[in-house]
């Protein structure tokens, strides 16, 4: 390291001022872009009035509404790191509201060689062990996700005993965020009081379950 030299000459001051300002602006701009990625919600489908009718109710992948029970439906991408936060929030919420039936719809792509690995991810194991009575459905090719309008991993849907949709949205504060957030509060309120439907779906932060042209990464504000 060279000995200390005071930044004293006007020219040097001006140069360092410019470099420092550029550096600062660059850092803040890049930080903004990084934050924007985490806080830009994914695509949320239109609210459905009623539980959509299942055409092939005998299929193991069929999502059947349980009459006389509140049903919590979670659409998850088993390899998206954001799923971890949704699963943790869901485990905590369902532990506090044991009356609801939980169904996890886990996306498994078609035509992949390691389908068993997708079906036995850590998140799946967590739900199996920590949510008693939860039903696991493997949604091959994201058919069920499309049917329910759940395009983003972490989408939670709640249907009341009559099959009416009373909650739609995410329960994390950001991609992978486990802090308190309006979605989580709304879900707890819905399960406690059975009220619904909510005015607006809460934002969902996670990986897209289905790939389409409009979901390609286009910069901040878009979802990869």
């Amino acid at each position, binding site marked *: *390291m060279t000995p200390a030299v005071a930044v004293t000459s006007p020219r040097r001051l001006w140069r360092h001022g410019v470099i420092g300002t550029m550096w600062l602006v660059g850092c803040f701009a890049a930080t903004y872009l990084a*934050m924007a990625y985490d806080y830009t919600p994914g695509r949320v489908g239109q609210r459905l009035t009623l539980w959509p009718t299942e055409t092939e109710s005998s299929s193991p992948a069929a999502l059947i509404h349980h009459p006389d029970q509140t049903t919590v439906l979670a659409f998850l991408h088993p390899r998206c*790191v954001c799923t971890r936060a949704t699963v943790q929030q869901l485990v905590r919420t369902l532990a506090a509201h044991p009356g609801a039936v939980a169904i996890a719809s886990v996306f498994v792509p078609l035509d992949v060689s390691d389908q068993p690995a997708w079906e036995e991810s850590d998140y799946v194991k967590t739900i199996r062990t920590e949510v008693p009575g939860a039903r696991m459905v493997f949604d091959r090719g994201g058919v069920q996700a499309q049917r329910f309008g759940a395009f983003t991993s972490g989408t939670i849907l709640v249907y009341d005993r009559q099959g009416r949709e009373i909650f739609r949205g995410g329960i994390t*504060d950001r991609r992978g965020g486990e802090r308190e*957030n309006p979605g989580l509060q709304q879900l707890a309120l819905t399960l406690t009081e059975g009220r619904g439907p909510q005015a607006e779906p809460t934002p969902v932060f996670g990986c897209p379950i289905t790939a389409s042209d409009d979901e390609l990464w286009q910069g901040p504000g878009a979802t*990869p």
Partner: protein
Amino acid sequence: MTTPRAEAIFRSDLQKVILRTDRMFFWLLIGQWLFGIAIALVWSPRTWIAQYWSIHQHVIAAAVLGALIMAYPLYLIIRRPSTPYTRHVIAVGQMLQSALLVHVTGGRIETHFHVFGSLALLAFYRDWPVLITASAVVYLDHLALGIWFPLSVYGVPAATIWRSVEHAFWVVFEVVFLVMACRKGVEELRALAERQVQVEEAKEALEAVQAQVVASERLAAIGQLAAGISHDLRTPLATMNNIAYFLKTKLQPQDQELADQVVLLTREIERMKAIANDILDFARPRPPVRTPLDMTRVLQEAVEMVTADAAGHRVRLTTRFGSGQAMVLGEHTQLLRAFANLLRNAVQATPADGQIIVTCARDEGRITTAVQDTGMGMDAETQAKLFQPLFTTKAQGIGLGLVNVKRIVEAHEGTIHVTSEPGHGSTFTVGLPSAPKEAMSHV
């Protein structure tokens, strides 16, 4: 009050602290960057769109944004270490790295402790304005996040600007104590510098004393040797003096040339006796046997001893003793020798047609005697060394005369000092305590 030396040590120590902290941040910034990348790779290596994956944005942010954040501080640490600008830029960079780590760990509340840890690390600089810069970055970061991404800091989709003040309060809470710690640290550094100066001064003084002790010991050894020789010389000198006297009595009026040689011989013998006495007085000093005596009489005797010498140099001797006695408690022999020495010096230092005035005054229990000459005078450096052993300005002196005068005066509880100016003569002033009345009653 801080001395210039203490201030210089303090500045140097503070500079070292700052340089050390700069170096610490150099490695810390790099370490945090690598840590951020590692965390991102472990926690969120890939992002997915259905079955397709790509590198997660957290990994890219940790690598690219992390590199951007640390680049300018690292450049300044290398090129401009220990400058205020560098440490303020480091403060900004460190707080931005905190924000980045919070981001790549998914906004975990635990990672927010990195902010408080960073503030504590920045306090290592002991420069509190750096903490203000860091706090400002934290506040602006919260303010911007509150405006654009309120969920990230407040957990609600919309929040008032005042929520950021609540968060800032806790930062300020820590910073207040860190500022106090910085100021205390600087004070301690200053106190340390002052103590170091004291230690250095004490060490210098000790070294001077040590040198003096070594010189004294050496001088004492030489003195003892010289004293032995001087003592042994007394007998042959007395014999030579007797022979000179015998020769003088045998001289005939026509032996003028021989008579001059005998006078010269006698003078040289006297000089040798004086040198031997000086050496003996210096090497084997003895306490005076003090009895009441009149200083005017001692001075008169001393004047008579040098009258012939003064006449030979064509120097006028004047005495101003005032009326009455000037009684002191002293040893006649020692005081006579001391004043004769002063007068002899004065005669030797005064050019022809000069004057020596000897005064004696009585004042508030003291007898003050002065020997004033119109000689060549002395500069300040010569005056400072005047009473040091073996220091002399005379070609034939051995530098013990004034040392003995001072020792004799001080043995009589007196003081001696000199005032002189080159070209304007010198005055030696001796102050001795007056003899107490009780002592006078025994006279």
